[in-house]
């Protein structure tokens, strides 16, 4: 398999080939031999030249994180042969962006109206959880196309609160 992997913003080319837990990885042209087993869902044990690594995978509504020891890395993975991934991977700065709830909570206030102009980082909706209020901010500069959040209702992590175009 061939992947384009982006780790903390750095894009790399990864080729993987193997069987029975033994893998030959070619990362940006460099060969690395890896012994890998999935010890339980979302926990991978890697042995590389005798060095042992425990990798944990965490998928949230918006991100994929891998933890190497106690260090966290933001990861994106693309199959370069997939058309869909090429389309999805293209910068999202153009076109509509969804504003999602990063945590479950209650919508206590909606700060802007539909069709209003907003700046990057401007507060759009206030969500309360565990007695704390959290302002959910616009991911881009643009126009608020739609507001789906309704004051007084509960939202789940990953729910779309608004769309900014």
């Amino acid at each position, binding site marked *: *398999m061939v*992947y384009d*992997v982006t*780790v*903390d913003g*750095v894009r*790399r080319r*990864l080729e993987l080939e193997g069987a029975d837990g033994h*893998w030959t*990885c070619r*990362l940006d042209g460099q060969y*690395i031999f*890896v012994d*890998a*087993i*999935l010890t339980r869902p*979302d*926990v*991978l044990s*890697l042995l*590389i030249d005798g060095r042992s690594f425990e*990798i*944990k995978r*965490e*998928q*949230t*509504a*918006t991100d*994929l994180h*891998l933890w*190497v*020891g*106690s*260090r966290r*890395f933001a*990861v*994106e*993975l*693309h*199959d370069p042969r*997939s058309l*869909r*991934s090429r389309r*999805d*991977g293209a910068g999202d700065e153009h076109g509509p962006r969804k504003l999602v709830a*990063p*945590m*479950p*909570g*209650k919508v206590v206030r909606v700060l802007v109206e539909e069709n209003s102009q907003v700046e990057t980082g401007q507060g759009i909706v206030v969500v*309360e*959880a*565990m*007695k704390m209020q*959290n302002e959910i901010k616009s991911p881009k500069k643009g126009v608020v196309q739609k507001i789906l959040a309704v004051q007084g209702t509960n939202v*789940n*992590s*990953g*729910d*779309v609160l608004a769309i900014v175009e």
Partner: protein
Amino acid sequence: MFKKVLIANRGEIAVRVIRACREMGIASVAVYSDVDRASLHVRKADEAYPIGPAPATESYLRIDKILDVARCSGAEAIHPGYGFLSENSKFARACATAGIKFIGPSPASMELMGSKTRARQEMEKAGVPFVPGTSRGLQSQEEAAEIAESIGYPVMLKAAAGGGGKGMRMVRAREDLRSALEAAQSEAQRSFGDDEVYIEKAIINPRHIEMQVLADEHGNTVWLGERECSVQRRHQKVLEEAPSAIVDADMRRRMGEVAVKVAQAARYANAGTVEFLVDQQMNFYFLEMNTRLQVEHPVTELITGLDLVHLQIRIANGEELPFAQDEVTIRGHAIECRIYAEDPDNNYFPSPGKITLLLAPSGPGIRRDSGMYEGWTVPLDYDPLLAKLIGYGTSREQAMMRLQRALYEYFVAGIKTNISLFRRILQDPDFHAARVDTGYLDRLLGQQSKTDVDHDSGQTIAAIAAGLFTMLQPISTAGRPGHQTPAVASNWKQKGRTEAMH
């Protein structure tokens, strides 16, 4: 001994008390709100009954409902844990009226300690050391100016009914006193419906050190050593240790004797904690008494070898303390980390949600009091405390090393926790040198955190692992931009994720 005890609480403390009951052969009764049906304390108890909707005012704070459950289930005593009704004298009184033993002090002791000025007047009579100042409300601007002059600036104005920093003002110079007093009084009136304000010398960068006491109902009172609680964020304790690195045997004995005096003056029974402020010259001053079991009680348990919850239950059962003061020995060192559901990268905002992966530490010198489990959804309605991780060692150094090791093993996914904060504190040279006061953590968080040295090799490993995960355990990515996996995920997972997006 009681045959059945009701636990009027939730989370890790309810689990802690239920465990003590099981150890003592006592049946336990849990209560739970609608969102806590799946909570750990419900699973661990022998019986469990619903008490209402999620908001605490409609469930865990409902005295009538809790007493109904106690009556119907035949519980003879109620352990209130901490928070909720634990320091509510009305609840303690209602228990007594219902013929159910409240595991804690008498309502009268709770009421005395509930009013700061009343407590101060009583404690002054008993000869307890206070921060210099008044023990009654200020009558006039002139009186305030006179007292401030005699104790010296800076001074602190505090609301008698206060708490949580409300109605509190620091005054650095004479010319600021008038406006500060007016502001404190009106804030106290607004917040507590009582504008009584008193004045104290301000202690700059104090330590917060507290003394555990235990009293039976036959007049025996002992102290069990201090806890250093200076590591705080926004007046919220984050990490506690026992003993304090700056308290020697002589100071410990003096603090302990004062704490016993405080408890006796309040005719106190059961477990309690006397809080002190300690200034840079090691003078200690009485602050207040907490009339309940503290969150951080495990550090005292580890260094004394005592089980405070067992003892609380025995005391409530009318037994005498099974040991005398000179039989209490302090051995080793313990440090507790409060694991909260909050996001260190986002200003410590609360982070409720589903725990998708939980790897818990164990091994030598590690105690974990937890209310969470993998697959559980942390409700958004309550305090964000998830668990307490406590390290014990023969020395402070060993306790720190063990905790660091355990924090390295601890992993929680799906929600954000403050575990990384403790890694940072435990690597900090000032913490190692025990140079902590109540301003310590804010100063540490104000500094840029050091970046890891082996970041690059970590990136390489992460890149390889990303590909291997995809090959070995494909996940569904429906609706998530910028990510594509070649293999098929299970249908329900796919469905769940798709639904979550709409």
